[in-house]
């Protein structure tokens, strides 16, 4: 008799979503995580006394509304803020605002206005097609069963129904880079750069890397999944983890925090238990890992428990990332040239041009830090004053690109890189430095250490086509099952991939139940 039907490794959002669905289906589920907080990358942490920050993900933009409803997350306490506009900061203070379909400021022309609307419409058409593929397992092609064939037929039909023009465009676009597509459609450098930022977040690619249209589409799927647009979670991102935990528990799952899974235990030819850090072993019918594939196979299970070809695939899975995070506790509201309070609470992007993004990308390839970076900034304490003491604020920023390792080592390089980042922000927010009460810079190895994400990759593995869809994470371990009986994947390393989306967790739960793996 096993202790549980399923043990979910990791109480990140996907782990909790998967656990909640399995529990909802009447399964005995244990979700375990080494951190004391649920949510994984949806995390809130105190930066300094009274200052709280979302220390990994800072925006919610593609969390599936379907999951919110099905799991009752609102009842479980999830509250989100108002839809954020994207303000692309310009050095002259005349900023460009992207507000849904509308563009204003920074001398944006009517040509770009119209082009932007047409572009969004076409992207939505493509995203709707991708949605068919995202809310379920990615089909196998040769060994396709009936479910897979139905998916493939639906896709084929969807392609045809888009119309010949759209289909031709999609065939051309899906593998190319965002840089060209932006140049084809728009004139305004700031607009192009602000949109291109969506394509490169969390990746190891620059705007000129082919495949960045795919990553852009991946993010654009947010418009289909989450009606509310880009928002902040009230109470910090950790509140999403809290709500998911409550929901999972309400459905009957047990969530155990502060206890890391040390090992996924294989007996005979199948996985049957996990060994926890406290030395106890918990038996189960299946282990469902929301950890990334590299960690799941390479560390928790161990490559020695895989056949060699699979072990080779594990090590060849690409998990590098260039995304870093800057956290500042501020004694007052920073003053950004040309922005009032209403503007400051929006999503602020600093990326003067796509070439600036690309130039920020180049040094990272050679383990160098560069001196110009691009930023995606949030000052969440404006909409949510609970995050900082009265009248004071926190600022968090995604920073691109900083390498996983530097030649001198991060211990040596960190102070001056952090200083350089603040200096770059000061060009837009004079006096910012004087307001800093506390600061920190998290670089890819920090994310790896804190959240167990190999390479610090936010998507649990580069989200390029060759590691996406029916190839995710790699051939032989697709459709949430792995080559090892009793071991499943439900994290962002499984289809449809990264970002706070919840779909890998939901899809995995459905697939595991359908296969009858827990009976």
């Amino acid at each position: 008799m096993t202790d549980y039907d399923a043990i979910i490794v990791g109480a990140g959002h996907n782990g909790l979503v998967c656990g909640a669905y399995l529990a909802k289906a009447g399964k005995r589920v244990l979700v375990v995580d080494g951190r004391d907080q649920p949510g994984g990358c949806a995390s809130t942490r105190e930066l300094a006394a009274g200052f709280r920050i979302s220390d990994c993900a800072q925006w919610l933009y593609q969390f599936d509304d379907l999951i919110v409803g099905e799991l009752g997350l609102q009842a479980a306490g999830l509250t989100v803020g108002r839809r954020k506009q994207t303000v692309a900061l310009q050095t002259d203070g005349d900023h460009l605002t992207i507000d849904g379909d509308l563009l204003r400021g920074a001398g944006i022309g009517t040509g770009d206005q119209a082009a932007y609307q047409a572009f969004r419409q076409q992207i939505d058409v493509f995203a709707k097609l991708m949605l068919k593929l995202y809310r379920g397992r990615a089909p196998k092609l040769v060994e396709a069963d009936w479910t897979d064939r139905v998916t493939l037929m639906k896709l084929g039909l969807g392609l045809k129904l888009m119309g010949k023009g759209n289909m031709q465009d999609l065939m051309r676009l899906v593998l190319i880079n965002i840089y060209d597509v932006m140049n084809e459609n728009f004139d305004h450098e700031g607009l192009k750069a602000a949109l291109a930022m969506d394509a490169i977040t969390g990746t190891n690619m620059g705007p000129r890397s082919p495949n960045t249209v795919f990553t852009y589409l991946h993010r654009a799927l947010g418009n289909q999944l989450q009606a509310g647009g880009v928002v902040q979670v009230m109470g910090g991102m950790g509140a999403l983890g809290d709500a998911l935990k409550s929901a999972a528990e309400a459905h009957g799952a047990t969530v155990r925090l502060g206890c890391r899974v040390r090992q996924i235990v294989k007996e005979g030819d199948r996985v049957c238990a996990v060994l926890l850090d406290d030395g106890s072993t918990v038996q189960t019918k299946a282990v469902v890992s929301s950890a990334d594939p590299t960690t799941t196979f390479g560390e928790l299970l161990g490559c020695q428990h895989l056949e060699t070809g699979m072990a080779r695939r594990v090590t060849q899975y690409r998990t590098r990332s260039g995304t870093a995070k800057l956290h500042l506790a501020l004694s007052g509201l920073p003053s950004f040239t040309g922005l009032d309070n209403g503007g400051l609470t929006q999503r602020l992007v600093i990326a003067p041009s796509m070439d600036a993004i690309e130039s920020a990308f180049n040094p990272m390839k050679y383990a160098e830090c560069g001196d110009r970076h691009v930023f995606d900034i949030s000052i969440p304490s404006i909409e949510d004053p609970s995050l900082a003491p009265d009248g004071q604020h926190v600022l968090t920023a995604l920073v691109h690109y900083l390498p996983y390792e530097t030649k001198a080592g991060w211990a040596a390089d960190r102070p001056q890189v952090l200083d350089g980042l603040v200096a770059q922000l000061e060009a837009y927010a004079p006096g910012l430095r004087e307001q800093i009460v506390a600061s920190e810079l998290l670089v890819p190895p920090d994310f790896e250490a804190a959240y167990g994400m190999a390479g610090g990759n936010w998507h649990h593995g580069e989200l390029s086509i060759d590691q996406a869809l029916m190839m995710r994470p790699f051939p032989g371990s697709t459709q949430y099952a792995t080559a090892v009986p009793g071991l499943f994947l439900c994290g962002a390393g499984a289809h449809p991939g990264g970002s706070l989306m919840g779909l890998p967790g939901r899809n995995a739960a459905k697939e595991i139940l359908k296969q009858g793996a827990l009976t």
Partner: protein
Amino acid sequence: MNQYDAIVIGAGHNGLTNGAYLAKAGLKVAVLERNPYIGGATVSRELHKGWYYSNCSYVSSLLRPEITRDLELPRHGLQVVPFGGGTTFMRNGDHFHNFDDHDRLHREMSRHSKRDANAYDRYAADTSLQTKLIRPYLMRTPPDPTSMKPRDLADLLEFARSFMALGEEKLLDTIKFWTGSVGDYLDGYFETDVIKAHIAGSGIIGTALGVYSPGTAYVLLHHYMGDVDGNVGAWGFARGGMGAIAESLSKAFQSYGGEIICDANVDEIIVRDGRAKGVALKDGTEYQADIVVSNLDPKRTFLDITNPKDLPEDVLKKAQNFKIRGSSGKLNIALDGLPTFTGIDPRSRMMGGEMHFSDSLERQERAYDDWKNGTWSKDPYLDMLIPSMTDPTMAPPGKHMMSVFVQYAPPKVEGRDWTDEDKDGFEKSVLDQISNYSPDFRDLILHCETRTPREIEAEVGLTEGNIFMGELTFDQLLFNRPFPGYSQYRAPIKGMYMCSSGTHPGGGVMAAPGANAAREILSDLKRPNTVPGGYADD
């Protein structure tokens, strides 16, 4: 007087091939050429007395053997001699020799890494599998996935079947290969920088992408899918330079009654009532024909010599968005004698092979960064050959001719046109690179022709100087080449066709686009096909 059944614009190898097959079918065909000489990018030119330069394309492998035989090119004087082998010089004074012989290559690789030497067999098998998948489609018109025509559906089904036969894992690996970067692909096999760098060069030649850019694994394949005498992936010299290919094609074409008209600079394709009716030259001369075939790249075809009012809007937009980026340059050098190279025995057969000077993927990626930043690579990737080591007709006895292909050179320098100073700087960076490994090389230079994208575009008419007439990335390959919906050689104007390297199966001196286009034209004319099918590959 100036009345023909078909007019082909551009006497490059594809134009001549296309013309030859149309003429062979009994059509009265004229091939018009802007330059006073034929060949396009397939030329040999005596730019220094006694020396002949293949001053654009410089080696042959992709030229389809079906066409060589069918048009009896050997009888018309073509002789292709394989050279084999290559060297990458290393900064530490060592080098890597890429021997043709398997055991010898193994031994050389073992010197760098035994694991790599062994992994090479796995690499070779996996890469051969990919060439086997693509080769059957070279002499075929790609099916159009957006079409519902029975022929397209049947072809698509066949296409799908050949991929399905691989089984799930190999199929997915194939998709990974077609969408991945050459750097990541090679990282999956090798641990040694120089071995990876030596191979990776084929993934970036002529391409405005870096070794770690997704899509470059296919470019590697594009350089592997040809053959010399059935040796897939082998390369050779056309004896007498690449012009010998154009020369033999022109003789084949003329043997079927075709006519070549040089110094004929086409201004516009004449269209009446939605039908192509001929062409008008810049000097006002007009030629009439119901079939007009453009061997110019898609941009020039639709944006230069076609009146926009004759084209649907989507095609104009597609032509504007067509990616044809200048990324390469070329140096052709007359040498007073054979230069010596550090670490190579002058009697070594490797002196007749390709030489490269980038010993790591990082150096190649940095060379690409320069291009992205709008300048030529300061540490360029070179594909350097001394054809006169193999072909005695290229230079006087005891003297040598050197061909240096350079990656990368931008179409514009920091956003402005190339200047002569830029050209000098570009030339210097290339000569410096070679001199690093050949101390006496500079002193032997008698004449040097330096071609930046500016010269390639101006003289050959390749937009931006792109050697493939359009990037070889998946968005522009197979049924996407040149644009989705227009991959079957027909332009949107009745009677107008495309036959350049900008169409399937793409660039390189392959002649397949010209032949495939001829087959479609003859089919539209309901004439018997004169174009051979592809050889079955085992």
